[in-house]
């Protein structure tokens, strides 16, 4: 279960540089496809591999590529989405910082499959130093004949440019990213038309996450079928999990799909258990947008099976008792964490990051933030709890892009699983007012009230 295919060489000293990367088998997949494959064969190999988008949505990558409109006569574009800003997620940053050539290599192969001659990497503006690293890797790619004209003596040409964002979570949504790349506000577009038909500058475009593009490299090297044999069911291959919160070993881990959550959480190879020997209270398994689950439901499904790290297992039970793999941002909360405060915090995030186009999201996230703030300040009313559920329900599904859903799901789920904690906030405002920064459990114990 400990097999690494993306981060296999991550510990090799100097792997950031072209020479070391190359001498560890780097850029072999580029040579292979340019020599032996047609673009359609590369796409087919990715389809066989069962690779699904690693940015959060989990859409099959090969299928996405096959939607590309090749008959329009317009040039096609490949865009790498490196606008990683989902709270709890920091895997792409890790990958780009430590093994940037893996992304460049994956982009060349993917660009070939899509017959694109221009590719952009959209990096969030805060990651200036990552831009420096990527620009360096791209320069090395050019000087070694892997970028530019006639790559490796073939007819294929590709230019890759890094484009800096400027601090907007919404630009991680693919159509908002395209707007931003065109020099506009990051307002998501109405779909259809999908980017594969009308994307950047109205041309056919594929937008893929950093990890997705990197995964194309091992798929070509080992073959799609071999990649598909790793993992479990329709969750093939490996996933980068970024673990954070109240755990002993926060960091980025490559796990084979199908690893039990229990092992991921408690094994010293991964998270290493809860910090300070505390008890596990809740987990957000795939970035702040996915439903939060209490300890018993993240470790086992409602049917009593072990919960595994895979798209299907984490989603088992639907929104009643399940969650989603999302981006792999694994946030762990110990017994002291206050669920109301956390809900307020996340809602403030979505309110701040709403682009303002759709009223339900623009206004609804603000209302939820205010209600939660009121509750967290000890001024909540009992009907606020249902009010929150009602607002969340009215945002969900009523917006152009998924940010509305992403803001609504955490609220609906935290009230579903931790309703008593919200009631406690209403019933004992004096206690709530005196608690700073969480640590509610301590008070609950002294008051002998169970949550």
């Amino acid at each position, binding site marked *: 279960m400990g097999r690494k295919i993306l981060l296999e060489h991550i510990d090799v000293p100097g792997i950031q540089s072209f020479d070391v990367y190359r001498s560890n088998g780097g850029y072999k997949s580029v040579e292979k496809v340019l020599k032996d494959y047609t673009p359609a064969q590369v796409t087919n190999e990715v389809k066989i591999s069962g690779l699904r988008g690693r940015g959060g949505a989990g859409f099959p990558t090969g299928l996405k590529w096959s939607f590309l409109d090749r008959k329009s006569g317009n040039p096609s574009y490949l865009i790498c989405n490196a606008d990683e800003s989902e709270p709890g997620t920091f895997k792409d940053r890790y990958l780009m910082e430590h093994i940037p050539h893996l992304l460049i290599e994956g982009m060349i192969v993917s660009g070939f499959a899509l017959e694109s001659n221009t590719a952009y990497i959209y990096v969030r503006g805060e990651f200036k130093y990552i831009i420096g690293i990527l620009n360096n890797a791209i320069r090395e790619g050019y000087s070694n004949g892997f970028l530019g004209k006639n790559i490796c003596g073939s007819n294929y040409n590709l230019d890759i440019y890094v484009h800096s964002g*400027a601090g907007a979570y919404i630009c991680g949504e693919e159509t908002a990213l395209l707007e931003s790349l065109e020099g506009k506000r990051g307002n998501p577009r109405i779909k259809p038309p999908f980017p594969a038909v009308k994307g950047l500058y109205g041309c056919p475009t594929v937008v893929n996450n950093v990890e997705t593009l990197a995964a194309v490299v091992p798929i070509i090297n080992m073959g799609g079928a071999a990649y598909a044999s790793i993992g479990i069911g329709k969750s093939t291959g490996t996933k980068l999990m970024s673990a954070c919160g109240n755990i002993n070993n926060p960091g980025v881990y490559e796990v084979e799909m199908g690893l039990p959550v229990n092992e991921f959480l408690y094994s010293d190879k991964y998270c290493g258990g809860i910090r300070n020997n505390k008890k596990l209270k809740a987990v957000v398994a795939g970035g702040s947008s996915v439903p939060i689950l209490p300890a018993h439901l993240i470790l086992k499904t409602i049917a009593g099976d072990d919960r595994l790290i895979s798209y299907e297992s984490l989603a088992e039970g639907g929104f009643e008792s399940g969650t989603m793999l999302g981006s792999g941002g694994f946030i762990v909360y110990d017994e002291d964490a206050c669920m109301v405060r956390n809900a307020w915090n996340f809602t403030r995030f979505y309110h701040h990051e709403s682009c303002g186009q759709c009223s339900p999201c623009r206004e609804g996230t603000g209302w939820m933030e205010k209600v939660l703030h009121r509750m967290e300040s000890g001024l909540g009313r009992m009907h606020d709890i249902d009010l929150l559920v009602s607002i969340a329900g009215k945002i969900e599904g009523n917006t152009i892009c998924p940010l509305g859903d992403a803001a609504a799901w955490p609220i609906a789920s935290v009230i579903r699983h931790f309703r008593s904690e919200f009631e406690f906030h209403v019933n004992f405002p004096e206690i709530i007012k005196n608690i700073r920064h969480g640590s509610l459990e301590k008070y609950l114990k002294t008051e002998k009230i169970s949550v």
Partner: protein
Amino acid sequence: MLGNKLNHKQYHKENQPVQFSDEILKKVEQIINRYPEGRQKSAMLPVLHIAQEEFGGYLSVDVMDYVASLIHVQPIEVYEVATFYSQYYLENVGKYVIEVCRTGPCAICGGETISEYLQDKLNINVGETTTDGLFTLKEVECLGACGSAPVMQINTEFYENLTEDRIDILLEEMKTRTDHSKSKEARWVEKFF
């Protein structure tokens, strides 16, 4: 959201002409050439970043108008963008802009106390600048470094696994730096754009 963010009275105050050096202009042209012909508006975000660094750390109306002229768009198109993205500052900021992450994973690992500590230490509220013009304190949303929470960013640098002691050392070091000029060398632009 938009509110009164764009203050039309706030024109460029420093006695510095709003004009890039030849070296930077060459770089701007290179950036524009990354995009297909007629799509020079795509260079908006990178050029605004460079302009902000070059002209005193924030985007005055004069600076935005200058950027509009460089990429051949109407000034309003630049204002639209500058008011949307959180990394563009529309008011003067200190030499060091301290941006403390306040989002969930940082908050449960002590991020909230870090911000309070900095407010006490610098004797300013969030959003304000110290009277010596050195530090501006801001709270920002997720910086994407949750595994090393709590985290803050000062200008382009990330500072992770923060403790109060580390912050003390960091601030002292910054205060004693002799070079307090804001303008960056062309190398800075070369590295990041």
